[in-house]
């Protein structure tokens, strides 16, 4: 069942068409805003953010935003299967289910969309193709076609949706909303710059950790999603390396006990309100392991992003830099990121 592609011998260049998918997402803003205003005006009771694997972690940014800011509706993030098993009692009329899947074909995500609709929820999805089963199972789908750029169009679509719901529900003032939108519009170029600025750091991380048997990846706030994505989607799935992710707050509640001077750790430090958690964990790591690498949003220039908006921008930037690190691992190990033994290869 295993198909091993030819070894990769060189770092792939950053894409020339780096912002096409993000521009598609930004262009959908009027449509997403209208949808948000409509769903709020009809009495939004709760929001379920659903996906599996990479699709699930795509929600971490908007989950963080809504958990912090929303007062008129709660938000829940669940894996698609867990959503169906749990069958939340609050799911029903007034519920909004938002599903994320790149392919739009993940069976349990499509099943979760149908399950949500059967139980009275409005169903929205972010996915690549309009003709996918997920898009077809949704009341509305925002797509972005085949994107190979820097940054994830889904996270932009979800951010616009979250911001628009906050504005519509009165939890975000119009001028603050505009500042967030200006930030999103500045990010396509800022993300590319962030990737360039971290090429050396990413190369050093990949070179140093390419042969490690286990790598820990940690982050706090929305950047726990960044850590989860690197550990699960890139290191485990695409590099076939054992890895584990932890919320930085939780790392100090047990996981720390395995740390020695030789323990490999990659930490993502954001500029969100949760930064003190990052700094706490970093203080421990600096003292007890020599093999920790820190990717810190403070070190990114993020051109075009207003200083006050850096806390909103930093998760997008760390996600983009993390995605680029995967390509550095690919070049360092020679293991093509497209190699799969199971996913898309076998039914299970």
């Amino acid at each position, binding site marked *: 069942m295993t198909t091993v592609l030819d070894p990769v011998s060189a770092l792939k260049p950053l894409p020339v068409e780096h912002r096409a998918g993000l521009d598609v997402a930004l262009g959908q803003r009027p449509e997403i805003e209208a949808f948000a205003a409509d769903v709020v005006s009809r009495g939004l009771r*709760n929001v379920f953010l659903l996906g599996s*694997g*990479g699709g699930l972690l795509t929600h971490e940014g908007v989950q963080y935003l809504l*958990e*912090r*800011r*929303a*007062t008129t509706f*709660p938000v*829940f993030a669940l*894996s698609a*299967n*867990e959503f*169906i*098993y*749990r069958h*939340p*009692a*609050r799911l029903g009329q007034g519920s909004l289910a938002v599903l994320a899947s790149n392919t739009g074909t993940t069976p*349990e995500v499509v099943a979760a969309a149908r399950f949500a609709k059967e139980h009275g929820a409005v169903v929205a999805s972010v996915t690549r193709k309009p003709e996918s089963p997920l898009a077809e199972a949704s009341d509305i789908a925002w797509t972005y076609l085949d994107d190979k750029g820097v940054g994830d169009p889904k996270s932009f679509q979800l951010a616009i949706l979250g911001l628009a719901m906050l504005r519509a529900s009165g*939890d975000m003032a119009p001028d603050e909303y505009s500042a967030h939108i200006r930030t999103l519009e500045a990010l396509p170029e800022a993300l590319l710059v962030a990737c360039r600025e971290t090429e050396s750091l990413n190369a050093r991380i990949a070179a140093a950790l390419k042969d490690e*048997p*286990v790598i820990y990846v940690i982050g*706090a*706030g929305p950047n726990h999603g960044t850590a989860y994505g690197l550990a*699960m989607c890139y*290191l*485990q*799935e*695409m590099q*076939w390396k*054992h*890895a*584990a*992710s*932890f*919320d930085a*707050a*939780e790392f*100090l*509640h*047990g*996981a*720390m*006990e*395995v*740390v020695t001077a030789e323990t490999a750790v990659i930490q993502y430090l954001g500029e969100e309100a*949760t930064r*003190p*958690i990052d700094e*706490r964990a970093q*203080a*421990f790591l600096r*003292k*007890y392991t020599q093999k920790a690498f820190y990717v810190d949003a403070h070190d990114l220039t993020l051109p075009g992003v207003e200083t006050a908006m850096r806390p909103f921008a930093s998760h997008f930037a760390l996600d983009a830099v993390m995605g680029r690190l995967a390509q550095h691992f690919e070049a360092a190990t020679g293991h093509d990121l497209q190699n*799969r*033994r*199971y*996913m898309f290869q076998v039914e*299970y």
Partner: protein
Amino acid sequence: MALLDDLTDQAIASELFTSPRIEVDLARFLAEQSPALRALAARAANGAFDRVYFVGGGGSLANMVSGQWLMDRFGGPSAQAFPSYELTWRDPAALGSRSLVFLASYSGATEDTLAALRYANGRSAHTVALVRRRPSPMATEAAEVIDYDSTALYDLPLAAVTVFALELAMRIGSPRAAEAAAALHDLERLPAILGEVYREGREPALAQAREFLSANLLYCVGAGPLAGLAYKFALTVFMENIRVHGSFIESSELRHGPVEAFERQRPDMVFLVGTDESRGMTERAIAVSRAAGARTLVLDAATYPAVHPLLTPFVLMIPLQWFTVYSALLRGITDLDERVFMGHRVLAIGSDATWP
């Protein structure tokens, strides 16, 4: 075997190994604290709260996660679980005077949970400290205290949120009230069942620990009501007490990445199989992992005395603890209550905080 028997006797008296005393401790806890938890559920059912937060760190988050799970399933005010510092720094705008906040800390002085308690108090929330005993900083500062005077820092806070959520389900007329009633009924039978599971657990655990003695990385996989327990063992037990690498995987997430990593290094995996709706997915995860060459330890709730599917975490906690005890002893870790960093105040802030 004499040395191992002696060390096992020593382990049975340790703070870590709570199963030897759980039959007595749980029965006493339910008798002593159920009235207060029912009263709290009555207040919630009468509309005193619009949000419920479950807060803790590590092993004391793993049981709080179950509180959210149960309230998601049965209804009532919307509920969310947070690591302690994530609550403090996320600073949810919805948290306020109509919020009920459960905070779990064994010592009652865990730095991040104490900070979260003070934060929630500052927002005028109704705070409930789940702590081992009074006096402690959290017991002193919380609006309400559920103290359990036991080392069972996972089971008894779990019992607390279970009683609360199930009682609430009954009082609000949840569509699943019959299921809640059945689970509450089984909760009364549970102490005796746990005693039986403990007494039967010793022998198989030694064999399992021997089989996994070479393991340097243990994935712990579970879903549904067992996800919290799987998280607890991966993060705070395998890593903290056996001192091997560990990672939690939710059963349905296994195929979304982790399984691909099995090609280069055969993984060692502990699966927790429930009797709830997630059972089928966990069984599929076992099958694909075995096909990929994984060495698997399967702890299946269906092979233990029958309890309501929502109560399986209490049951599987016991074979997991037995497995941990022998895994630690066979690795030469004979003082189960000693830690490399935890409790040594390597970073602790504040004179009244004990962590980490």
